[in-house]
């Protein structure tokens, strides 16, 4: 047996121990080094994880290269668009078809979003609209009520200013659905306040939105 082979086999043993939670700190450090430097070690590590995953669910079985490919793609994606939210020249038309990159982003984000689509409790939802001028007409146009749809079309054609406080239940619910993720994110980010009640934020989340 040559020296590298001995190293490799011992690295495998340590990786296996690590996967089972039995590695010492020193062994863990060696395993991490092997994982960084050795393709075979990474493949082995994947196998150990896969075994555990398959024990739980067949759905978790993936190609050995998938982990690395996903990580690489994710890193490339993050590196490529750190300024996606930076101010930029106002687009000529908001309704233009999304660029290919945006559509591609949509594809890989979709499964995550479908699964993670949890929403906050909207307790005592109470909407005040002191200055809802923009989009008032479109909001109403999307409402289910026939009467309100006709009111909205009046507003759209005549440009009349509708009473800002007029809201259908359907629209209030739609607004609640839109706002809930922001509330959940805010509360999740601020759970460690000095007088936060024990048990985290009771109001945080209440519903999973699953895709069909």
């Amino acid at each position: 047996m040559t020296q590298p082979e001995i190293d490799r086999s011992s690295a495998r043993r340590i990786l296996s121990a690590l996967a089972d939670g039995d590695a010492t700190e020193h062994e863990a450090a060696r395993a991490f080094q092997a994982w960084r430097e050795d393709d075979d070690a990474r493949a082995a590590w994947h196998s150990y994880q896969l075994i555990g995953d398959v024990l739980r669910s067949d759905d978790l079985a993936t190609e050995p290269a998938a982990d690395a490919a996903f990580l690489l793609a994710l890193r490339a994606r993050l590196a490529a668009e750190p300024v996606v939210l930076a101010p930029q020249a106002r687009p000529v038309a908001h309704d233009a078809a999304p660029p290919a990159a945006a559509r591609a982003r949509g594809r890989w984000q979709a499964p995550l979003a479908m699964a993670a689509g949890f929403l906050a409790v909207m307790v005592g939802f109470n909407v005040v609209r002191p200055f809802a001028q923009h989009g008032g007409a479109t909001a109403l146009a999307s409402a289910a009520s026939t009467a309100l749809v006709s009111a909205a079309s009046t507003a759209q054609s005549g440009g009349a200013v509708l009473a800002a406080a007029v809201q259908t239940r359907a629209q209030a619910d739609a607004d609640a659905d839109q706002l809930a993720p922001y509330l959940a994110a805010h509360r999740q980010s601020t759970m460690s306040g000095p007088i936060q009640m024990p048990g985290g934020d009771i109001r945080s989340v209440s519903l999973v939105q699953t895709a069909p």
Partner: protein
Amino acid sequence: MSPALSASRRAGEVARAAARLSAGLLVAGLLASSQAQAQVVAPAPAGEGAVDLRGWLTRIHDAATRSNYVGTMVNSAGGTVISERVGHYCEGRNELERIDALDGEARSMLRVNDEVRTLWPRYRIAVVEPLDPRAAFPSLVSGNEKQIPDFYELHVQPSERVAGRLADRLLLKARDDKRFDHVVWADRATGLLLRVDVQLAGRTLESSGFSDVNIGVRPDAAAIYAELHRADGYHVVKPAIVPTKLETQGWAMLPGVVPAGFQSLGCVQRTLPIPGTDAGAVKVLQTIFSDGLTHVSLFIEPYQPQRHKTEGLTVIGATHTLTRRVDDVWLTAVGDVPPATLELFVRALARKP
């Protein structure tokens, strides 16, 4: 493949998590130990002043993180009441917590140290998140609690009974109109928070508290581990949160406009699940501000006319949300603060010169 292997792997996961955390907990323990000793000498600070307020907050924090308790927590806001079952245990170096929602969609939140798993049995989904994005918001725990006395006045009020226990009642009265008053009931014997009310001019906007609680129970970590194991096979989702800076994203906050006392705790880029969008999610920038006691989040994202329809204010109990379109961006400011305070945050945001 034997079940034993699987069990061993899971035990290994817990052990690894514990090992990963032990270093951090040690540091936290060292930092806290001096406070703990002070607490033994002076269990219930009395009187007014900055020193006393810090004493109270330390006592409350220690009780929340170090005691073993089980109880039913009730939240009342805007005429709606929801409740949950809360269990918190310290076992060795590990801090464990379990919260089961009693209303609405069935869900359980299981926390082992700084990792939180929210389990949704009906959908067989486990959402894995850090307790709070402390890694992403390093200054969230760096303690701008020091400045609380500058913006809130402490009044120790006559003690009251809450959830069957004698409680010290504290009023943290806002010194200006940029924030709400907070009334806090802390257990006389242990310091554990029993109830918190958010008030405006003596009117309660929202209240959270135990309806019943047992403090000093025997830790039941096994039940939490068993529940974690029961969720094996759930689809695991880890929402991505990437730390960034407002400035590198091309933004700045106008210092004279940001409400007094609120300091930036950090900025992250994250994905929010939004039903009805093409991807089912949108990427936003979130900046968090705090005056030491309460937090405000400002979300920034590109304006999308099909989705961003309603500008204005939404009120849920004490939580106010202000949405506003500014040119080609859509702003959402959220916090337990008066609407005028959110308005200042929205107006303070400017493009970096």
